[in-house]
């Protein structure tokens, strides 16, 4: 190796070291008092649509969900309401994903609904991202509107929280991107003209105008992940539930807006 080559290598290594130090310095969590819901990044028209129940298309899913809640299904011939009367789901959506002892890991609200369906109602599980499951989780979520997000972090859920955190900060895919590079470091910027936002899952399931449909947080995560050109996780994958848990913890104490509207 000639001295010139050695010099170039040294400069390269130094530049790399500086760059990585800077990236580490940049990748800082958003201070709690600077957190903003996606709502605050929206225009006045979209906010008005979310705020007015009679203009919020998510309401259609809430009413469908209420009808499903009262319908008797399965070989047990039981409805959800037979066990959970009235507005007994108040606050529940704000606590999910929650630890499920039988499975030894956290499950999200959609998975919990299907667990109830198969185990208590003895009915077939509803397809993930299907209309009826989204309607049920919208109905359950609506009852927690305005309540602070409060997932339980204890010795049982902490490993999954940490797994979710690792996914959020891990550079991955063909673009070598981490979620945090956009949503922690560049949330004030725009991507293709649209605000990047801080990625707080405050309103799921929500009506996304781009989808012209209600969708779950997992659908949204899979959107972002395919945009990062990462080999995607299937719906219901434990990696996605861990990421959901981390994001809900990251949005702790922020009010739930279900069913939200987003562009």
């Amino acid at each position: 190796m000639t001295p010139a080559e050695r010099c170039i290598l040294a400069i390269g290594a130094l530049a790399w070291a500086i760059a990585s130090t800077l990236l580490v310095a940049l990748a800082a969590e958003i201070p709690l008092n600077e957190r903003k819901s996606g709502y605050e990044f929206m225009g006045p028209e979209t906010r008005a649509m979310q705020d007015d129940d009679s203009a919020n298309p998510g309401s259609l899913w809430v009413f469908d969900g209420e009808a499903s809640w009262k319908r008797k299904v399965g070989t047990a011939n039981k409805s959800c309401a037979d066990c959970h009367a009235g507005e007994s789901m108040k606050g529940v959506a704000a606590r999910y994903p929650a630890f499920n002892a039988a499975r030894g890991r956290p499950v999200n609200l959609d998975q919990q609904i299907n667990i109830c369906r198969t185990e208590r109602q003895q009915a077939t599980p509803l397809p993930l991202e299907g209309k009826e499951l989204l309607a049920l989780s919208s109905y359950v979520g609506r009852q927690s509107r305005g309540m602070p997000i409060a997932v339980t972090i204890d010795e049982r859920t902490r490993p999954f929280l940490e797994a979710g955190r690792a996914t959020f900060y891990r550079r991955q895919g063909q673009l070598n991107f981490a979620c945090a590079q956009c949503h922690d470091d560049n949330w004030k910027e725009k991507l293709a003209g649209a605000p990047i936002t801080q990625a707080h899952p405050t309103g799921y399931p929500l009506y996304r105008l781009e989808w012209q449909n209600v969708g779950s947080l997992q659908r949204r995560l899979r959107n972002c992940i395919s945009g990062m050109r990462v080999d995607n996780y299937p719906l219901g994958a434990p990696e996605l539930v861990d990421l959901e848990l981390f994001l809900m913890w990251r949005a702790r104490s922020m009010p739930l807006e279900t069913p939200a509207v987003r562009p």
Partner: protein
Amino acid sequence: MARTLINVPPKAKKGEVIAIKTLISHEMETGYRHDNVGKAIPRDIISLFVCTYNGLEVFRAELFPAIAANPFISFYTVATASGTFEFKWTGDNGFSATESVNITVE
């Protein structure tokens, strides 16, 4: 039947201008899309919305493929007398939905 959500003030003063909001669940499939094997997805839209007030037509809208799914239609009318608003949406594949809401005018 498709789920609808209608907002009409239950009470109004005679001569008052009132806002009416309607929302209906519908795919509004444009007819311009193709499925994952390239087959055209046939058009399936609501093409007409009509509102009558005590039998008199007060609002009508034609809808086209560029209208988004779950159409939200809002309009104004003058409260003239107590009675009924009737709403009717019709469209492709024999789609038809009707709703009625009462109003008290003092």
